[in-house]
Each structure stands twice: as C-alpha cells, then as structure tokens.
C-alpha cells in the first residue's frame, strides 16, 4: 500500500561549490542550518509531509556526515519494510568517475527507478530552505496537463547557474524560454529546482541523454525540449529561500529571528523532522542575558547573546558576548571573549579574552574543530 503515487529523489550534493566553506567536509544536504537542522531535513520533511513514502537520496562526494545524519530514516518515519528511504551512492561503471552531474546521478539511480512502482517522480535539491506542501505543486502538474513542472519563485534570482524562466500568461503558465545566467533583476521567475514528471518520461530522458552523452539536465535535456514537451511553471509563494553563498547562508539564517519568517517556516501543521540527539534542554545561568536569539537544546549560556542562532551544545561563558553570530554544534566561547558576526562550524573552541569581528555584510567563518 503506497501513501501516494509519487517517488521522491533528492540530490544531496547540488551546488556544493556555492558554499565551499561549509561543504568542504560535507554535502550541501548535511550543512547545518537553523540551530538544529541539516539542509536535507527541509526537502525530506516536505516530502514526508506531502505523503511521499519512498525517497531516494543521490550522493556524490563527502557523504559520510549525510549517512550519519540520515541513518535508516527513522526521524522522518522513512525506516520502512516496504518503500522508505534509500541512499544512492555513486554508481561508477568501470572507468567512470561517479555522479558528476544531475543526469549522471540519475543514471546511477536508474535501477532504483526501474524497481519503483510509483507513477510520478518529484526531484529536489538541498540548497533551498523551505517548508512547502508538494501536493499543491502536484495538483498544478496534473491540472496543467504538463509533461514537466518546474517550481519557481519570483524575485531577484540567486547567484547560481540556475534556470530563469520566461513564461506565457496562462493560469498554469508554460515555460517558453530558459536562460541559465543573467543579471539579478528584481522580478525574475527563477527555478527552485523542484521538478515533477512521470517516471516513464524521466526514464526515457535518462536513456536519450545517455545515448547522446548529454550531462547537463537544464542545458541539454530540458532546454532543447521546450517545444516537444509541455514544460510548465508552478509558482511558489510560501517561504522558500535559495542559498547561493556564505553571505546568503548568513542572511537567510538571520531571517529566522524575524517572527513572520519563523511562523511561515516553522509551520505548525508541517513539522520539520531531524535526527534526535537526546540533549538536555538549554540552561541559562545567573547573570546571562539572551535577546532575539534562536537557541537549540543542550546549550549552557552564562554570558550575553544578541541576534544569534545557537546550535545544540553551545557554551557561552561568563563575560563572553556574541552578537549577530551563528554558532554551530558544540562551539565553546570562553570567558570575556567578544564575537561579532562570526559563523563557527562544529566544535570550534574559542578560549577566553579573544575578540573576533566580521560585518553583517561580511561574516567571519571559522572551520570545524578550529581552536583559538
């Protein structure tokens, strides 16, 4: 018995290069975000929340942390006897280098596709912070009669090689033209790289691409077929932000301090699931002062924090002060140390009496395990 007729496919490594600092040791999907999440939690929870019971996760490189995070898929209720979550590591044929592009990744997953009984496929990347009901997109897909539906959003396009769509004016607009780069115009319809299509069509496209050596999904597979296939856009107006750089990672993180964004993002009816860590709740000591902060479990705060995102197990000692910072899991801030606009990766250790300052327009990043 399947919850619905849609198969989920996630690309965990998409756009790793846009965030080299955070993806040096991990996939885009396992980049920490929002105090307790990893980027893959968003599309994965969206899929589960939309009734999808089978998800394949395509990986390319550095996916140890991702495997550790996903394990058997329990937190997302995807540890199933039938269906559930399947990790799809690179499937290298003799002499091939593994999944380098979206098409190669899909080719490696063709066995998985062939054995899946679902009629439709929804594919998504992991660099979009969003809380969406994919069922709405699916309704669009069915009602428009499209062969392929691309979820898009209007606004300044992210600084990535991602599709900018020209659309006709219909109720379910058809994509007439695709550009893959361009200046940041205020009202561009840009792709969120969430695609819906029939599994049979996807399998055909994979086969044709393999035969012709096409590797680029957007450039070589979709764009030449705008006439032969009905490619439609489905506009997303719910909360969705694309991470395209460390700066946008910082800005989008800070948006979570805004009540309206938080409400849209932490939608009570659509919970975001993540790995359970069994930390104790956070303790605020005597003399601590914490304002306008999002704080995960397991922290011990004896100092001052303002406008910060504090992940699990962060310690801020007496006399220390953090402003406008993103402190990831296990960061230690020693007594009387002052931080402004600093992003610390996991387990960064800052001893006492240090001062580090970035700017909201140029946050300082400290890599995993750095000790100062």
């Amino acid at each position, binding site marked *: 018995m399947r919850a619905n007729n849609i198969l989920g496919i996630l690309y965990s490594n998409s756009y790793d290069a846009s965030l080299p600092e955070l993806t040096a040791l991990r996939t885009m999907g396992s980049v920490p975000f929002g105090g307790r999440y990893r980027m893959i939690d968003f599309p994965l929870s969206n899929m589960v929340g939309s009734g999808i019971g089978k998800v394949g996760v395509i990986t390319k490189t550095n996916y140890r942390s991702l495997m550790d995070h996903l394990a058997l898929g329990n937190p997302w209720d995807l540890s199933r006897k039938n269906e559930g979550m399947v990790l799809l590591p690179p499937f290298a044929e003799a002499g091939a280098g593994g999944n380098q592009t979206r098409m190669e990744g899909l080719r490696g997953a063709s066995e998985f596709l062939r054995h899946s009984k679902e009629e439709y496929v929804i594919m998504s990347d992991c660099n979009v912070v969003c809380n969406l009901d994919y069922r709405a997109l699916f309704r669009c897909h069915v009602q428009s009669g499209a062969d392929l539906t691309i979820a898009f959003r209007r606004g300044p396009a992210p600084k990535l090689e991602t599709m900018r769509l020209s659309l006709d004016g219909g109720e379910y607009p058809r994509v007439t033209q695709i550009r893959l780069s361009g200046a940041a115009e205020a009202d561009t319809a840009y792709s969120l790289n969430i695609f819906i299509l029939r599994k049979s069509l996807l399998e055909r496209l994979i086969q044709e691409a393999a035969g012709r050596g096409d590797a680029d999904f957007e450039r070589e597979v979709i764009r030449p077929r705008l006439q032969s296939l009905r490619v439609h856009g489905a506009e997303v107006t719910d909360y969705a932000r694309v991470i395209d750089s460390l700066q946008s990672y910082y800005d989008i993180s800070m948006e979570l301090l805004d009540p309206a964004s938080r409400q849209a993002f932490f939608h009570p009816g659509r919970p975001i699931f993540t790995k359970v860590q*069994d930390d*104790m*709740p956070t303790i*605020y000591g*005597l003399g601590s002062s914490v*304002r306008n902060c999002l*704080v995960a*479990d397991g922290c011990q705060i004896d100092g001052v924090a303002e406008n910060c995102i*504090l992940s699990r197990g962060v310690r801020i000692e007496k006399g220390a002060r953090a402003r406008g910072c993103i402190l990831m899991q296990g960061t230690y801030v020693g007594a009387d140390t002052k931080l402004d606009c600093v992003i610390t990766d996991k387990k960064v250790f800052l001893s006492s009496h240090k001062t580090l300052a970035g700017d909201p327009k140029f946050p300082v990043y400290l890599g995993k395990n750095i000790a100062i």
Partner: protein
Amino acid sequence: MQKQECIAMLLAGGQGSRLGVLTKSLAKPAVPYGGKYRIIDFPLSNCVNSGIDTVGVLTQYQPLELNDYLGNGQPWDLDRVNGGVHILSPYQQMKGTEWYKGTANAIYQNIHFIERYDPEYVLILSGDHIYKMDYAKMLDFHKQTQADCTIAMLEVPWEEASRFGLMITGEDYRIREFEEKPKHPRSNQASMGVYVFTWSKLRRYLLDDEANAASSNDFGKDLLPAMHRAGERLFAYPFDGYWKDVGTIDSLWEANLDLLNPKVDLDLSDPDWKIYSRNPASPPHFLAESAVVQNSMIAAGCVVEGLVDFSILFAQVTVEHGAIVRDSILMPGAVVKTGACVQYAIVAENAVIDAGASVGERPESAADLDQWGVSVVGAGVRVAPGAKVPAKAMIERDVPAAKEG
C-alpha cells in the same frame, strides 16, 4: 526466546494520588520532569546504559498516555529482536480476572513472561524516582555477596529517615532488620525501591506469598520480611548520588528546580550516561528582544517574550510580553499571556494563564506560611483574564474572570 542473564521489571501501575490533578489522566511514571523528560525515562535509560535490554513495564492505572509514550521502545534503544520493552497489563485468565493486587502480585501474574527469558536474576524497579544508577554494578555486588536479594540503599538525613523504609545492616552490608517508616528511626539507610533478586528464590517466594491469604502481596510489607524471617541472604547495596522520590507536588517541584542548582549532583548532559526520551519535532526555542531569562531551563519550541527566572519551561511553552514566571514549572504547551504572573507554581500541559491573571504566591508575601504551598493548574485548564489562583491551590477546572468590584 534467548536466555538473558538479567531482565528488569518496572512497576509503573501506580496512580501517584498525592500528585492530585497532575495524575488525573496519566500514570505517575508518565508525569513530565526536567524540561523534556518523563519520570519513566530515568529507570529506562538506566537500564539501557547498564546493559539491560529486556524490560517488562507493568501498567494498570491510566495506561493510555504511558503506552503511547513507550511505543516500541525505540527512543531508549529498546526495540530489540530478542527482549526490548514489553508493556504488561493485567489480563483475563481462565480462573477469573484480577487487577494487580500489590507489587509482588504484579510480578507473580507475569511469572510466565519472566520465564520466557530463563533469567538468573531479576531487577525490580519503580517509575517513581529521579536518579542515575548503574544497575550492572549492583548486579556485580549481588553476585559477589552471593545474595538472594539485594536492595539499593541510600543514606538519608536523620530528620527525614522516618518517611522511608529503613534497613539496619551489619558491616558486611547484610541486612539485620527492616523498619517500615518508624517514628523513632534506628537507622538512616533507606530503601530506594530497587531490588535485584536471584530469580529461582524470588519465584519460590512469589508462589508462597500468593498462597498466603493474609498477605497484602507487597514487596516491602510481605515478601522481603518473609525472606528475611526464613534466613535468606539479604544485602543492602550502598548508593551515593542524587535520588529523589517525586511522589508529592512539593518534591516534584523541588526535583525539577534541583536541575538549576549547580551544587546538585544530577548531570543530564553527560554524554556517557544520556537520559533518553521521546519528543515531538519542535524548532529551537526563541527568546525575543524583550525577553529576560535567567537561571532557567528552556526546552525546544518555546517562545519567550517576558521574564523567566528560576523556572523550567518544557517544550512549546509560550510566555508573552510583560508576563512574569518565577520559581515555576511550565509543562509542555502551557501559555502565559500578556501581563500574567506565575510564581511558585506547576502549570500542567496546555493550560492557559490568560492576560493579567495570577497563579501562586511567594512565601515571603504569604500571610500564614502553614497555609502556603506550590499552586498547581491542571492540564488544559484555562485561568481567565485577571483571575487569581491562590497559593497551594490545585485547579482542576477553568477559573472564571474575577468579578467586578
């Protein structure tokens, strides 16, 4: 079933009537504690951390929430192919239907469950206490002393000794005498309600106890004294660490706030002895620009805009702008609205303290300290705008707004 050296039986059927409205619709072991836990998380996590992975949980009073909470035991790593967590409720038998008459009878009725694992030893636990304990060490002690029964023992302050079941032991920790809540205690060695039995012995005494019509079928009152009279080897296992019975409103309130006292020896953040629990998916908590939070513990999903001091906030609690929460425990989903004031209180799950209402009083401002106590607002109760809940009150139904004039 594969043989297990030691299995645990957790007595979780108690009502905990002294917790009043807090156990109206859930069993005492399911009562929330420490921001994200429930009392039963402690014995269960101790079991797993001690290498005991077969636990029978005996339920009787209001089992729904407890059963839901335990589920398949996955949060405690107790979803096992052989063993794991089993919920054991009273059942109908050929000769009739019986509730669990007492603690010993509850185990007696589940002898067949225990025998499936053919254990050498059985650990008897209760779901009433907050403590971290390595049962494996106690089991080693039991083997070393070649005891028939070992009882975990804690030295309590002399002035409190008369509230406990006490043991008088020799230098070798062999138990010479039992004293059940004596007026004039001769010992301060209290039983923690944690027993290790050699199963063959326990089995015999359970059968004898059941055959004795005069017995109240209780471990402390009947079975252990019977073993002692018969000259069996009973030993006390000394434990030193934090241990608290949370059977009353005052002790539950205190045990929660103990977590904020750095001098109290109860570290829940020890990565080598985690306390596991089942938790809903909640985002991190948010402290607003206007929030003033000190000396408090705050769990996931909370939103705090007001003042919180010396308090424990469970998951998804809201403290609105201008609200004051001091010396209090707010259980999951509780809401304290604008300008409301909660002091020395326990507010149960999803209760709403409406704008300008006040709950509880500070002991300093009480007219008569004998009449003062911690206030309790029951689950789902609404305290209307401006209404006042006095000290020591226990509120079961919605409180209407204060009358004009």
